[in-house]
């Protein structure tokens, strides 16, 4: 069985995905609002899994909400909070509820989050989780036992094209490909020339690559990301562009920049699509897509 997302990846169209951040608490109105805004504008929506190790409403819960509201979910699954039993169990559950796209992640470290004394699990890593999915699909669990009813997923992973150093990162990318990753969503990229070089390398592999586009909201945010977020580098000309925007207009400049980058990636078919992350400003994603001419 193929998912709508997988069909789009294989159709050759320029695939747009976006992201939903579940709430901290039980007020799910804003999440529902974001889903309703995005469900017809993008092919599929990731739901983050305690992003940045901050405890929230669960990823699977967000995915079910997307299903109920007629959208296509991508379940983000990290290895930080569950051991191999819990990860497999959740995959079985997800499958029975029609959540069949999974993004396999190692997960952020515990100390960067808001439960700094918690035990980080990391029983599996992202490569092993991808292989776990393929193993479950073969009808057996990680213990080698038969499953009564198997699963089928469209499984993906992430890659950081601008990691420093990049060589170990690319080696892991190849291990993820070997482990059965069908698609990759990248860490945020801003330097299209550098990204094109990465794509020249990545094109050697039978996987679909969606470039990560994170909305820049101000020059300060751009500088902060460059200085603090591993693998993200915002070129100075973009920082200057944001800084030159009239007061209160930086966000519109950010939308314009994101739109411009997406349009360029699409026009030259540099990659297979984009994964647009507006980090809490999901209502702006349609504006970004309009700016991209999509």
């Amino acid at each position: 069985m193929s998912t709508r997302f997988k069909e789009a990846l294989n159709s050759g169209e320029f695939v747009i995905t976006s992201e939903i951040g579940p709430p901290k608490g039980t007020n799910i109105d804003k999440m529902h609002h974001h889903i309703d805004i995005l469900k017809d504008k993008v092919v599929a929506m990731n739901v983050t899994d305690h992003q940045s190790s901050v405890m929230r409403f669960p990823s699977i819960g967000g995915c079910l909400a997307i299903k109920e509201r007629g959208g296509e979910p991508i379940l983000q699954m990290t290895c930080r909070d569950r051991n191999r039993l819990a990860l497999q169990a959740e995959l079985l559950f997800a499958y029975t509820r029609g959540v069949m796209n999974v993004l396999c992640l190692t997960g952020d470290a515990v100390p960067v989050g808001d439960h700094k004394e918690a035990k980080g699990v990391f029983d599996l890593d992202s490569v092993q989780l991808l292989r776990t999915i393929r193993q479950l699909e073969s009808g057996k669990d990680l213990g080698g036992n038969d499953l009564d009813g198997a699963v089928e997923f469209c499984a993906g992973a992430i890659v950081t094209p601008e990691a420093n150093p990049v060589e170990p990162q690319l080696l892991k990318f190849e291990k993820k490909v070997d482990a059965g990753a069908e698609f990759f969503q990248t860490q945020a990229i801003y330097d299209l020339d550098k990204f094109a070089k990465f794509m020249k390398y990545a094109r050697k592999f039978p996987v679909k690559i969606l470039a990560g586009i994170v909305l820049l909201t101000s020059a300060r945010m751009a500088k902060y990301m460059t200085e603090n977020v591993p693998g993200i580098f915002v070129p100075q000309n973009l920082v200057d562009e944001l800084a030159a925007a009239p007061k209160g207009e930086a966000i519109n400049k950010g939308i314009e920049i994101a739109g411009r980058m997406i349009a360029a990636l699409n026009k030259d078919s540099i990659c297979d699509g984009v994964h647009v992350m507006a980090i809490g400003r999901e209502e702006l994603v349609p504006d970004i897509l309009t700016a991209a001419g999509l």
Partner: protein
Amino acid sequence: MKSITKQKTFDEIKEQLDGLDKVFIVGCGTCATMTKTGGRDEVLGMKDRLQELGKIVTGWTVIPTACDEMTEVALRENSGAISSSNCILVMSCALGVHKISCYIDRPVIPALDTLFIGLEDEPGNFHEVCAQCGQCVLGQTAGICPLTACHKGLLNGPCGGTNKGMCEVDITKDCAWTLIHRRLEAQGRLDLMRKYQPPKNYQATPRPRTTKIA
């Protein structure tokens, strides 16, 4: 190789000694002396602080190696002062605390927290290099243990948190996989890093772990 310790806060020591007014203090002449957490100076310092607090220190000793079999003898030599105390405050790693608990019928209180088994690379600089997992992978990782040196204990390469070769969790620490990659590359053995490492057997020797030498 040393058992690395740090002294508990005095508040925590005080809390543990609540209702125990007569204290005998034991230090250790090996690791805890070297790490300056439970040698003669620290034991005497603790004695002063406890006395300022109004405790009676019935005696003290620094056992050459608190975790070995001579500990019983050292305790026997101090049996008078120990018998007039109502607890033993131990300034050694947890191995010493455990050993002393085997011979003493009164409360044994740790004054230190045991952190890790450390390797000294330069004087006073200790690193945890082995997590004692029971399934050594160093042959595939150029002598650097990813289970120990990588914050997440990843077996198949770095996460996305590598920041200029350092770890995003603590930028003063190297990214283990950057180091492993560098060494394997220099050895012309990067194929080892390309090889898939399956999920680790975390029950290689189920806890509590024991062994009997034949």
